[in-house]
């Protein structure tokens, strides 16, 4: 290979001069811009010159895991096909889970409704029209019992998308497992439990950042002893991306959130290797195919190096970043919705080529409503086709060594480290959030993207080009207010029939621990057993810690 110092230039420079330039004179390139969906400029060609000096000693299953955490990739075990679902009453969602299991789904994933996510009982004024709409309503242990009726928690892993009230919902799950006779030492699953991205992106926060961080480290400590196979947190970039970040911002902020949790855990007196192996991640898979694959590869290397070098982790399981992926809901269009099957398939393929450990594929109707049973099945089939027909699972990290992929991976790593320097300079992610830094970055990126769409620099098929005037509406799932009526009636009945003295005592005990320094999971388990509601438990803590109010950034 010619060195850059050679007067004739490098091989790529010579090629550009002697081959590309004459071609461009005859037939210019399309107008462009040739950028990723995140606005990153892309060269027309990548060669060995772009990957000079890159570490090429990486192997799957070895530090720093850029090529994957398992030596055998998907030859050993396919990713978990985990479809997120929930709506209406616990009984309705229980039936959807049984359908998904019967269709070959290999893990459950619970979507809760907004009142549950916000720690409010359905009779609160802000819950008007929200009960059972975006997910399933779970008010108390009684609902959790209904949700998993006939499903053996010893035999299936469950992911629960719950953040502010994660300790309460997790406690309910543990009590149902106990009722079924399942051993806490062997059950497995995931709670999202990632409050930092709520402040940054999804905004389902209750308490201010610092007490919220304490609830999370309480779970780390509790699980390390009591529920050792549980994934205590799913540090999430998904929502950051959906809220408008670039691919790089998703990667940088998510991993920096992860570092913040590790730091808080260490500060709370935990040993890194006792809780980091149970941390997992959750990324988006958006439409820019190669950029997304590079993101996953970069994530593994960044995390492994940070755990080893920044925190001195010694256990390889602390270094190995495991992640779930969901295809990008925000990329789906209400127009010509069948096109969404194709978008989702490409995004799912990117996640698989990036080595995801589990995957949710969105349904074609999700820009319009929650999915029907039929569209949810097509989404699952999409994964099964990739897994069993495409052949991509035969080989580990099939794109490793591609000049383009390796260069993009390195660019993602370099860009992330720059963001980390900025955030470290502010004192950490909690401090950066308090001053609105990631929020401003997202607001800016989402506005820039929307403007690029308006100018047609970015084409969205069926939305700003290739528009079809005579579209017929498709049938969607319409969620009425039946669940709200059922749940409100149940709430009133529950308050009549349970032992209210026990509820009061348990809530008082919770408040006492919250004011002091004990682990909040212990009194929460007793509140749950007494059938205290999510709203009551959260209100008890609101009295101690207050509620977070953001300063909006536009």
């Amino acid at each position, binding site marked *: 290979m010619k060195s850059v110092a050679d007067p004739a230039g490098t091989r790529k420079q010579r090629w550009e001069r002697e081959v590309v330039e004459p071609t461009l004179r005859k037939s210019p390139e399309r107008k462009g811009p040739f950028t990723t969906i995140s606005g990153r400029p892309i060269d027309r060609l990548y060669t060995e010159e772009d990957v000079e000096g890159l570490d090429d000693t990486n192997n799957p299953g070895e530090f720093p895991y850029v090529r994957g955490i398992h030596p055998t990739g998907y030859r050993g075990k396919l990713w978990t096909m985990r479809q997120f679902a929930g709506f209406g009453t616990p009984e309705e969602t229980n039936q959807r889970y049984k359908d998904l299991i019967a269709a070959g789904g290999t893990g459950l994933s619970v979507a809760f409704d*907004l*009142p549950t*996510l*916000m720690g*409010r009982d359905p009779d609160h*004024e*802000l*819950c*008007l*029209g*929200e009960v059972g*709409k*975006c997910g399933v309503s779970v008010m108390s242990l009684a609902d959790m019992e209904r949700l998993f009726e006939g499903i053996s928690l010893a035999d299936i892993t469950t992911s629960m998308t719950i953040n502010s009230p994660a300790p309460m919902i997790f406690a309910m799950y543990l009590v149902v497992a106990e009722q079924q006779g399942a051993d806490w030492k062997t059950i497995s699953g995931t709670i999202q439990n990632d409050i930092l991205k*709520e402040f940054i992106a*999804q*905004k*389902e926060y209750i308490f201010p950042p610092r007490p919220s961080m304490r609830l999370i480290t309480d779970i780390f400590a509790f699980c390390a002893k009591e529920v050792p196979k549980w994934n205590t947190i799913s540090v999430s970039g998904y929502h950051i991306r*959906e*809220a*408008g970040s670039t691919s790089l911002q998703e990667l940088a902020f998510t991993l920096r959130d992860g570092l913040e949790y590790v730091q808080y855990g260490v500060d709370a007196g935990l040993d890194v290797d006792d809780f980091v192996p149970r941390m997992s991640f959750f990324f988006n898979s958006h439409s820019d195919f190669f950029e997304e694959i590079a993101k996953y590869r970069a994530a593994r290397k960044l995390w492994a190096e940070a755990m080893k070098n920044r925190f001195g982790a010694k256990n390889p399981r602390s270094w190995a970043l495991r992640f779930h992926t969901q295809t990008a809901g*925000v990329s789906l*269009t*209400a*127009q010509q919705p069948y096109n969404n099957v194709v978008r989702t398939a490409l995004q799912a393929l990117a996640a698989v080529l990036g080595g995801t450990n589990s995957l949710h594929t969105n349904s074609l109707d999700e*820009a*319009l*409503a929650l999915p029907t049973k039929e569209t949810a099945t097509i989404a699952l089939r999409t994964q099964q086709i990739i897994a069993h027909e495409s052949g991509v699972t035969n080989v580990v990290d099939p794109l490793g060594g591609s000049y383009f992929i390796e260069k993009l991976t390195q660019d993602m790593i370099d860009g992330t480290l720059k963001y980390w320097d900025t955030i470290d300079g502010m004192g950490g992610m909690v401090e950066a959030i308090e001053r609105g830094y990631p929020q401003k970055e*997202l*607001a800016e990126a*989402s*506005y820039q993207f*929307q403007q690029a769409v*308006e100018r047609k620099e970015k084409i*969205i098929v*069926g*939305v*700003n080009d290739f528009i079809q005037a005579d579209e017929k*509406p498709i049938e*969607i799932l*319409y*969620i009425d207010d039946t669940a709200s009526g059922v749940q409100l009636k149940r709430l009133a009945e529950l308050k009549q029939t349970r032992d209210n003295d026990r509820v009061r005592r348990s809530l008082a005990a919770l408040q006492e621990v919250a004011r002091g320094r004990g682990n909040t999971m212990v009194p929460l388990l007793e509140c749950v057993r007494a059938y205290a509601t999510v709203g009551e438990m959260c209100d008890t803590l609101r009295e101690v810690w207050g509620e977070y109010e*953001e300063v*909006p*950034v*536009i």
Partner: protein
Amino acid sequence: MSQKIRVVIAKPGLDGHDRGAKVIARALRDAGMEVIYMGLRQTPEMIVAAALQEDADVIGLSILSGAHMHICPRIMALLKEKGLDDVQVVIGGIIPGVDIAKLNAMGIHGIFLPGTPMQHIIDYIAAHARARV
């Protein structure tokens, strides 16, 4: 010089997905309107009180959670009660087709579904905001 159109943008209900509301708020501001961005978790009462206090010509709601058929009637009733019938209410979000006629019947005609160009929303508001004197 004609007075700027005054728009209150709010997210009622519990949903926190504010990307659309914020992008629209900024686009309307860049189009020369006066935008009062209220942010998240606003009750109908809070929104109507803000519209009154801010002398708003337009209320823009962003609802993605499916709660619109509860929130919108309440807001329309409160506006009537306060004598603010001439304030235009527009809504953006995920609104099933079957609800659109019902919202129209309440007096909400600016209903913007996913994929609507920002310019279309700006033009609609400019054309339909109550006349300022």
